[in-house]
């Protein structure tokens, strides 16, 4: 029987543009991810169970809750995107924990995730993000599902430095990298993937 090697969405797309200094984009490959959709009338219970599983408060809204093992992102009414650190049983465990209250759909390979940082990041982001990312208005507690350069993305903030994370359907990774490179322009960009 064949064994298969896993590749992230940005595999082979790593590159340095210009000075490379302005913005750093690092792929987070190998994360476990799942869409969690509450059953009819069970949004509150789903949030509660998600919270108790990971030890933080989860609300039904565009908010982020995070711990060492999991990140829960509100992406729609009664719907969350849950990321787990590399743990093969993460999604199955989540499914068991939410049995009867929510559908848990494995998306570990569906999304390509980048962490973005660097001194020129804010000016890069404003070339694609059509929502207000002012630090007072978009905090590490916030999540936005939106579009960048015609590509649907989930965007959240990891820290106030700021470091942002952007997840998007993996088939768009190459197109998204084009936006990143072009928009970084003279500021420079480094994309790192496995």
């Amino acid at each position: 029987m064949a064994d298969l090697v896993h590749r992230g969405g940005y595999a082979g797309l790593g590159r340095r543009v210009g000075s490379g200094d302005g913005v750093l984009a690092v792929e987070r490959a190998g994360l476990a991810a799942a869409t969690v959709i509450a059953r009819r009338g069970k949004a509150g219970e789903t949030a509660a169970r998600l919270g108790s599983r990971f030890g933080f408060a989860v609300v039904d809204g565009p908010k982020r809750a995070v711990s060492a093992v999991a990140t829960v992102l509100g992406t729609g009414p009664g719907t969350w995107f849950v990321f787990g650190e590399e743990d093969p049983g993460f999604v199955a465990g989540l499914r068991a924990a939410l049995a009867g209250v929510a559908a848990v759909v494995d998306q570990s390979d569906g999304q390509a995730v980048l962490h973005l940082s660097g001194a020129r990041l804010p000016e890069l982001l404003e070339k694609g993000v059509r929502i207000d990312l002012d630090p007072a208005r978009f905090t590490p507690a916030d999540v936005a599902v939106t579009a960048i350069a015609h590509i649907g993305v989930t965007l959240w903030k990891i820290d106030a430095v700021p470091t942002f994370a952007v997840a998007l359907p993996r088939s768009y990774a190459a197109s998204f990298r084009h936006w990143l490179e072009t928009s970084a322009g003279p500021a420079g960009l480094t994309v790192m993937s496995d």
Partner: protein
Amino acid sequence: MSVNRLATGGLVDRQTPIGFSFDGRPLTGLAGDTLASALVANGIGLVGRSFKYHRPRGIVSAGPEEPNALVEKGRGAYREPNTRATTIELYPGLDVASQNRWPSLRFDVQAIGQLASPLLGAGFYYKTFMWPAALWERLYEPAIRHAAGLGRLSGAPDPDTYEKAYAFCDLLVIGAGPAGLAAALTAGRTGARVILLEQDFALGGRLLSDTVEIDGMPGPVWVREAEAELATFDNVRILTRTAAFGLYDGEIGAVERLTDHLAVTPAGMPRQRLWTLVAVQTVLAAGAIERPIVFGGNDRPGIMLAAAMRTYLQRFAALPGRRVAVFTATDDGWRTAEAFASAGVPVAAVIDARRDIAASVRALAGDVPVFLGARVLDAIGGQSLSAIEVIGDHGRRRIAVDGLAVSGGFNPDIAMTTHLGHKPRWSDASLAFVPDAMPANLAVAGAAAGRFTLAEALADGARLGAAAAGAAGKPVVAAPAWRASDETFAVGPLFHVEGGRGKAFVDLQNDVTDKDVAQSVREGFVSVEHLKRYTTLGMATDQGRTSSVNGLAILARLTGRTIPETGSTRARPPHGPVAIGAFAGLHTGTHFKPTRLTASHGWAKEQGAVFVETGQWLRAQWFPRAGERDWLESVTREVDAVRSGVGICDVSTLGKIALSGPDVGAFLDRVYCNTFSTLPVGKARYGLMLREDGFVMDDGTTARLGEDDYVLSTTTVNAGKVMQHLAFCHQVLWPDLDVQMVSVTEQWAQFAVAGPRSRALLQQLFGPAADLSDAAFPYLACGTFPLGATMARLFRISFSGERAYEIAVPAGYGDALIRALMVAGRDLGVTPYGTEALAVMRIEKGHVAGAELNGQTVARDLGLGRMMSRKKDYVGRLMAEREALNDPSRPTLVGLQPTVPGVRLRAGAHFLSLGAPATAASDEGYMTATAFSPALGHWIGLGLLARGPERIGEQIRAYDPIRGGDVVVEVVNPVFIDPEGTRVHG
């Protein structure tokens, strides 16, 4: 130093000379110049030619309202036509050329057209060129086209790039003159988020041109201090060279010029950036534009707006004339006389149409001869101004001048206040349109509001800046109170001087004269909109800034109405022309739309695959091999391989939607015309989805993975549409159903493994532990099998008609899986195949696809009427039952084959009965898809034919005149290969 440059003063840097060229002539300007000011300083008055009569024209203004001085900037692919000399910032090597003239600017043969000008009045072309009709396109129109137009595009792709950006703020200030700076300072000091836009490269507006003081400081000094203070605020962002061009619902568009002023563009730097700005409050502080006066010969080079003359003199230290006169109906015109006098330039006369002038204004002229109650009747000269003829109490008098400053009043720059449909109000005091009803969250300050004095501008700015800060929760503690001069801005009504001998231009660029307006009125074009369209008044590149109000005033007088009764035309974005490239941003060329790549893309590229766009996806179309002469040979080989051995095709692009919940079965029964609630777990079924109007929307296979878990597949192109439709059905139609759904298209890499040896290949892949026997895994089974570190989903479904499977793994393993499949199938002769072979095989099997699922067919047309359940309700049921949609004469799916082997069939051919004339009445349908069938050795086709199923065996014409084809074909069963369906089990 250039001939007309003052030795001192101005905001130019005499230490930094800048070489540039105009019509190939090398010239020198200074840092801080615009092209226009540098031309003025070099004594160049003739800059361009007009649109219709090719009249010689000079510089009229000092800003973006410039109607005359348009040039081509740059060379080759960088050539940018119609660029206003007044907005070009001088840089070393700037290369500009005049336009709309041949062979030269000084000698333009088309200027001879002026002689025929009595024939070329308003709307002349509507009245002639009709005989003979054939000559219109061959002779008349090409001549008109050639003479019209202004600058030339290069015809080469724009070599620059553009980008877009989005920003949000509490206060957006448009214009950094005194009012705008006051607003930005007031709000900025509170910590409110402010964005300040200025189209010029320097902040200050009129403070850079006028000799005014604020708090005892000269204008430019106060501006410098304001700029320095603003720079200390993190919450204030200043965008210079940035023009707001449009107020839209909830957002404002602006364009920033990033490199147009640079001799060398830094690598990776776009030329322009399109901003979409969202502001809680916007203050429009765009100032006002001076209005010319219409009189004979008012287009002679050397005649300029009075405030513009002052700008050249005081901001740029450039002399627009060596002996000038001022023709004014405003107090402001007198300040130009004063400016010239203090610069030591002889002022020949101040001519004011008014008689009642304040003493303080009268004093500005000093001992210059003054003519009150007088007018300039005619300007005399050719390519430059030589004299003016003044009429007044003294009778007529000719005064020799080479420059004339004209001031007819000020038009507040209010276009943005009308973009959303709000109408301005005519002010009899200002003799101008001023803002009236206002869009939400927009306020107007200073001259843009018709409040012209410096003190008013500063007060407006402070008040509106404070209000915006307060609204943002940052109240102003101590309101600023700047002290400034309170100059007078009285104005008298003078739009038009009648009786001159020369042509009197209302719209300078489009050559619309007072006579054209009069003729339009005679012909009944008395609505302001009719006048504009009939004469093209106001439709030039200055968008009517220098012409509209004068045109209205003349129209009003001729029709016996007041100006407000006459009305005004509505301004629409863009306010100021904007490069088309800027609106497109980086979405050009191959990046016009995002491209989606499957997990096997890199592998397919390695194999030399030819790719095809399918929606946003790129799919392998075929895999050419060395020695193959054309695509048909490659595709034929791929089809043969599948039918005789095993082939692999990436089908990841098909939409995949995971559905779960207790009511999934019920939900699927409502969205599909066939039934899914009865589908056993571990089984897949083909489904057909209708629109509510009864036509087919999409098809695909849906599998039941668990009691409450299904995975539904869609066509590649319709994936998004189906997802939206299912969300609609769930959220809007049946919110009571407990269903959860999410797209998993991206999660799974999926490959079809098809052909008689497909099971052997998969067995090799999965190893002996997997039981893939027909007993354990029959046709239409689905299940999960371990594969290395992951689990693969296996579906036994077939599009080709052969024994076939689809194997899906998490997309991260997709690349590895295609390689593993190739290895596992090496000894079986595995062959990758693309969409073209896929299409051949589906046609051979009579399966419908995009060509038949075109939104114009119902299930019955496709031979799928039996799928429509009679036991349940579903989307589209009632509408599909309409009689007209069940008419047997509707074209219905059939197969077609040529009666002479070897003849090629082509999709798009229409069907005619043999012997029927080739007319619309004979049209009986059309060929939807064709392919060369390797198995049959000839071309085959699918088509929709009226009463098709009844006509099997009949010969008909496949009529294809557009490709010169006319083929006799036989109507056959649409299933060409294995109609009994045994091979899926083979």
